[in-house]
């Protein structure tokens, strides 16, 4: 059997094993309030789209978290470029980055709820989670750019845009990929946590909050599965877009 096919089969087997353990645990507990099995969650998934404002909730959460992610990505890249050029900028940004990285997300969410409307908290939290990850990765990446290529660019007097296209973007590729891959998952986790605490109208977070209030474990797990689907789908799409952009850049 070819290795790729074998690996897929092994992973499928692992998923079936995990679902079986989950189903057995649900059967052993035998209390729907505490734990429902994967079969019940799947059944609920088939009907939950009929819930009022189902698609609106998904769009609200998607729009806010993705906006925060994109803003964090842009800010992280720009601030890393600034820090790479100026040691003063890096020093001035250092306490902010350390604070953002070390303060618990829940504290930020509560503080943000005082400053902002609950509607926008998930944008800001997603931004706060993504920005330092991107900043750190990009700063390391810019510092690791091949000095020989930069010297060559100086000799040939390469214009800035050509340097960006032929030197910086290719050299930063592993750092951008790694930063985005890490930050995408984190932005969804933190963004939804912000929605659960802030409970903005029409969000998945509010649906999760209601499921908790009504001790509706079916809905709780069902919405969790929907969040995972949204997060993984966006991650796959965004990473494919990034890889496509690089393929185009490299002329493949």
């Amino acid at each position, binding site marked *: 059997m070819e290795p790729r096919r074998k690996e897929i089969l092994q992973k499928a087997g692992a998923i079936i094993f995990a679902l079986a353990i989950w189903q057995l645990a649900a059967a052993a507990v035998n209390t729907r309030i505490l734990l429902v099995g994967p079969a019940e969650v799947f059944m609920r998934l088939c009907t939950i789209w009929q819930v009022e404002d189902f698609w609106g909730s998904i769009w609200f959460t998607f729009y806010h978290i993705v906006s925060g992610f994109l803003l964090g990505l842009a800010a992280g890249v720009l601030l890393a470029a600034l820090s790479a050029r100026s040691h003063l900028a890096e020093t001035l940004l250092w306490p902010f980055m350390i604070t953002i990285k070390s303060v618990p997300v829940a504290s930020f969410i509560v503080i943000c709820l005082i400053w902002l409307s609950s509607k926008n908290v998930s944008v800001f939290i997603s931004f706060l989670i993504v920005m330092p990850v991107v900043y750190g990765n990009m700063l390391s990446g810019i510092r690791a750019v091949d000095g*020989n*290529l930069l*010297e*060559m*660019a*100086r*000799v*040939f*007097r*390469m214009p800035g845009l*050509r340097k960006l*296209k*032929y*030197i910086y973007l*290719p050299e930063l*590729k592993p750092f951008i990929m790694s930063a985005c891959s890490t930050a995408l998952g984190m932005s969804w986790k933190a963004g939804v946590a912000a929605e659960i605490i802030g409970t903005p109208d029409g969000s998945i977070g509010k649906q999760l909050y209601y499921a908790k209030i009504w001790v509706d474990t079916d809905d709780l797990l069902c919405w969790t599965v929907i969040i995972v689907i949204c997060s993984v789908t966006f991650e796959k799409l965004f990473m494919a877009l990034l890889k496509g952009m690089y393929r185009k850049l*490299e*002329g*493949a």
Partner: protein
Amino acid sequence: MIVLSNVSKSYGERPVLTDFSAEFPAGVTVIMGPSGRGKTTLLRLMMGLESPDSGAISGLPERLAAVFQEDRLPMDFRAAECVLMTADRDVSRKKAEEELTRLGLGAELGKPVRELSGGQRRRVAAVRAVLARPDALFLDEAFTGLDDAIKKTTADYILENTAGKIVVAVTHDADEAALLGGKILNI
């Protein structure tokens, strides 16, 4: 003409060039000498990659190009892209590919540079330098790694396309110096 007047350069406590003066007019000048005598440092000073501790360098033209000891190519790009990255604005992709084909790289145009051999990469670097249309071209051991036939083709290609320009080459190989012709400067 590039003029170096009483140029000195040290790295830490180690002097590499002391009160060095020379003129590099249009045409080929080959700098020769044993290792550690400052040949590459001299090129780096003229390319603006180092500053002299004392003395002056004048007459440097605006448009410079170089073929370095290392290839200094972005490895994920194809050869034509590597040429276009520094090429004069009127150089088309077709022109870049024609020139690469002239140097025997026609079959390699579809591959990223990382898949080319050392000798092939060196030829890509040579085409890149020529199509930058420089007023001064610097060659730092530019033919290392090429076999004799390709060395001659590449040298002829460079000389043919830089006639009337300043070409400064560094080598420790007398055969390479002979291939380039021009004035020899022993340091």
